[in-house]
């Protein structure tokens, strides 16, 4: 069972399409959604795969530098003796990826394959939750856009964070349909009485204070200027009706006009969407101590070393979801910081 849980969030830099295959509805290629709420989500397998790829594709230099520090203390943990230093450290890093994310022999170095020859049936020491929506960007008549959320989403977020921080509590105010709650001195209110999102007006009920949530984000000040808490049903309508729909087609090279039958449309989460997910770590799943590589250190818990390896090597910017070749799915990941009252790492 998992010993450590840590929360992370990402903000989409470009539009994000984590698809759920084909659909019979209006959109040919819809995004993944939760069955019971219809809110957008990112399946944990999509997330895990993208993060694993980001780890595998790190520059050799970065892999080597990270392990040089560890090998100074005890180079016997690194394994792969009789190989020159740099290659040895890179192999050890890639070996660690197998222990953390599970065994995958695609494009794997022969030397690592040999290590797992007798036993490649084991679980990875990391686990990921689905990414859930927290703030969804919507066009605003004033201040360009607003980040909408709702009591259900905020309460769920607080519950999820309790897995990481035991005494995290917050009373979320309730909101009536057609009303909203915002921070004082924001960028989006019109005459301090209402907010206009897309073509709908919401009257402001009271001043918002969810500082304990926002202070854990790097964008704390930005969020305060734009966050709007809507009623649950209003929020649901927005995340269903105001995602990005992009129409695509193909031009026939011979005629220079649209090719027959190549017209389709796909759904995206817009840039500036903010979602969060949890990462869990366990001790390494290996029978023999010597197979645990750098995670076998005296006096340190394996699950802590696993989490440390993950956090220190997690790239800040990476690609998630489909259509990477047309620039989609660039996201910026950060930890949700427990002791962060100023915003920032």
């Amino acid at each position, binding site marked *: 069972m998992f010993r450590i849980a840590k929360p992370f969030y990402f903000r989409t830099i470009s539009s994000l399409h984590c698809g759920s295959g084909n659909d019979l509805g209006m959109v040919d290629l819809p995004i993944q959604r939760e069955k019971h709420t219809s809110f957008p989500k990112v399946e944990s397998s999509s997330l895990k795969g993208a993060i694993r790829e980001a780890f595998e594709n790190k520059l050799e230099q970065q892999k080597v530098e990270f392990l040089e520090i560890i090998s100074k203390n005890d180079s016997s943990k690194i394994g792969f003796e009789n190989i020159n230093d740099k290659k040895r450290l890179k192999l050890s890093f890639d070996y660690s990826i197998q222990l953390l994310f599970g065994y995958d022999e695609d494009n794997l170095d022969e030397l690592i394959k040999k290590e797992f020859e007798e036993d490649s049936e084991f679980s990875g020491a990391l686990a990921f939750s689905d990414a859930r929506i927290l703030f969804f960007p919507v066009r605003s008549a004033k201040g360009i856009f607003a980040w909408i959320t709702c009591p259900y989403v905020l309460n769920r977020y607080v519950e999820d964070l309790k897995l990481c921080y035991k005494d995290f509590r917050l009373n979320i105010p309730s909101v009536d349909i057609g009303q909203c709650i915002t921070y004082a001195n924001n960028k989006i209110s019109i005459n301090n009485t209402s907010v206009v999102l897309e073509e*709908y007006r919401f009257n402001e009920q009271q001043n918002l204070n969810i500082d304990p949530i926002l202070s854990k984000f790097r964008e704390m000040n930005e969020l305060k200027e734009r966050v709007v808490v809507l009623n649950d*049903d209003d929020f649901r309508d927005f995340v269903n009706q105001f995602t990005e729909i992009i129409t695509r087609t193909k031009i026939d090279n011979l005629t220079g006009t649209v090719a027959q039958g190549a017209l389709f449309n796909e759904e995206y989460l817009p840039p500036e969407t903010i979602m969060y997910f949890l990462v869990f770590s366990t001790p390494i799943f290996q029978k023999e101590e010597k197979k645990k590589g750098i995670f076998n250190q005296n006096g340190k818990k394996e699950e802590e070393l696993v989490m440390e390896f993950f956090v220190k090597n997690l790239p800040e910017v990476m690609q998630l979801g489909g259509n990477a070749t047309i620039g989609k799915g660039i996201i910026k990941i950060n930890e949700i910081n427990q002791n962060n009252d100023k915003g920032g790492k």
Partner: protein
Amino acid sequence: MSFLRTTDQIKIEFAFNCARNASVLGKEYKSYVKKLPMLIKTNGLGAAFAFMYSKRSKEEGKFWNSIGRDIYNWLNYRNMINSDKVRSFDELVFAISQISSVEYRKITSEVLSFLSWLKRFADGLIEGD
């Protein structure tokens, strides 16, 4: 399970009959039905209805009027509009500017859901791309 028909089943039958009756208008009907959901999603229901209204007496008016009539009849069937005050699609175009945001979004969802069936049947009943 009960023998009550689901809303979706009733909607399917309704949309099928609408598409079958409209298929005599010509094969262009299909492309108009397919275009409308996107118009609604990108511009909003009010703007899309106003656009359909603006084409009323033009060449392509026969397609838009047929789709508009079907939308009106379906909303009326579901008791989502007051048929004493709003007696036709043309009156519905004006009436939706008078309703609350919540009602407006509810009707938008319903129209989109109805059109997704209408689109499917038009696709199946009418040949061509």
